[in-house]
């Protein structure tokens, strides 16, 4: 049965934005924790830890997010967990975000002048204090712009969760399109909603980057 596109359909699509935001939020928080661990391992003294972190980053940046999603989705059965689209999407996107944020933050940590670490060591600060009070606060300033930029990529990435059956914005659009068959209108609306989510973040990232560049050249 094909029916007309009504305001209820529009509301269904708009309210699915909630799930896109929730999934993005989970992945970003999980990715921030994972990314910090990856970045610290990547810049650690021990060679083994550095290698493992580098391998993790290379694998997740060198394979499609879609394959990562499928692998986690079907992998849940392998480790004996119930196959749940939200769980699979959250785990896959968290791992994905950990790799990308880990690489971004590694760059930021390495960009902090080595004199800072040396000074902290000379003051006999422990590794934890050195990172927490000296290196990371400075690295954070450098990392904010690319981190916000990655958030845009992550929000767009959550659209792939629709393929393993999680009803977020894109899947909501598909469902309504199947019922009303107004693909131009439906996918146009879905695209406009993503744009509303992502564009302000893109502008923010660009503004931060410009301000950073000014601060560096000064």
């Amino acid at each position: 049965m094909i029916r007309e596109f009504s305001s209820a359909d529009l509301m269904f699509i708009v309210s699915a934005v909630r799930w896109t935001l929730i999934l993005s939020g989970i992945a970003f928080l999980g990715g921030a924790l994972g990314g910090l661990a990856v970045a610290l391992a990547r810049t650690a003294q021990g060679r083994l830890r550095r290698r493992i972190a580098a391998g993790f980053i290379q694998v997740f940046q060198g394979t499609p997010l879609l394959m990562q999603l499928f692998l986690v989705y079907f992998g849940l059965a392998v480790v004996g967990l119930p196959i749940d689209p939200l769980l699979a999407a959250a785990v896959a996107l968290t791992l994905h975000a950990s790799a990308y944020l880990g690489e971004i933050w590694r760059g930021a940590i390495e960009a902090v002048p080595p004199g800072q670490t040396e000074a902290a060591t000379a003051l006999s600060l422990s590794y934890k204090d050195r990172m927490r009070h000296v290196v990371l606060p400075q690295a954070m300033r450098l990392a904010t712009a690319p981190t916000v930029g990655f958030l845009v990529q992550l929000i767009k990435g959550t659209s792939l969760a629709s393929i393993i059956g999680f009803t977020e914005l894109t899947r909501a659009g598909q469902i309504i399109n199947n019922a009303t068959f107004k693909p131009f209108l439906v996918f146009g609306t879905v695209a406009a909603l993503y744009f509303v989510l992502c564009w302000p973040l893109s502008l923010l990232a660009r503004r931060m980057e410009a301000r950073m560049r000014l601060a560096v050249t000064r």
Partner: protein
Amino acid sequence: MYQFNFQPVFGNLDLLLYGAWLTVRLSLMAMVLGLVVSVLGAVAKTSGIRPLRWLTDVYVEVIRNTPFLVQIFFIFFGLPAAGISMSPNTAALVALVVNVGAYGTEIIRAGIESIPRGQIEAGRALGLSPVQIFRHVVMVPALRNIYPSLTSQFIYLMLTSSVVSIISANDLASAGADLNARTFASFEIYLVLTILYFLLALGFSTLFGAIRRVFFTYPASR
């Protein structure tokens, strides 16, 4: 306990390898056409013609702030409603070119703007024609400056191209999906697919490194 069964994968490895070849071909075509779109976009964006610049801005911002999956749905399902129908394979190529063109436009614009004005003036002083200046003084050094970002964008494009399997265009991911529908050895199939994509990414990265060494290194002495 989960029983691994790799037989369906290794028994049909030829199908997957053929799929990998299709992904390579699709990506290469999208890279070449995408580069053309990117150069045109960058020229439009740095040109003094205001409506042209404005249009390019809209194109770049819209594409960069919406997911590729939604773009391909819009092109494959939405455009036929406006009278433009395409086969899945054509729609896949068009969507990839449109997508990578937007990112490429920004990258190449940054490259063009990295060329100091004095260099262009020097080209003019040497009596080069505007076309010669654009090609030898602006484009080649600009491409050299942005080569790393452009090629990593291209590798990202190859990885993104796996999404075209959703509209049943032919590529590595859709070869895997077909095999999955016949054998249900899902985890094993996607594990091997992921490894194949990883190898493709390594292959492209090696290829781009070789191209860089041949075309974009300064002669040591002349």
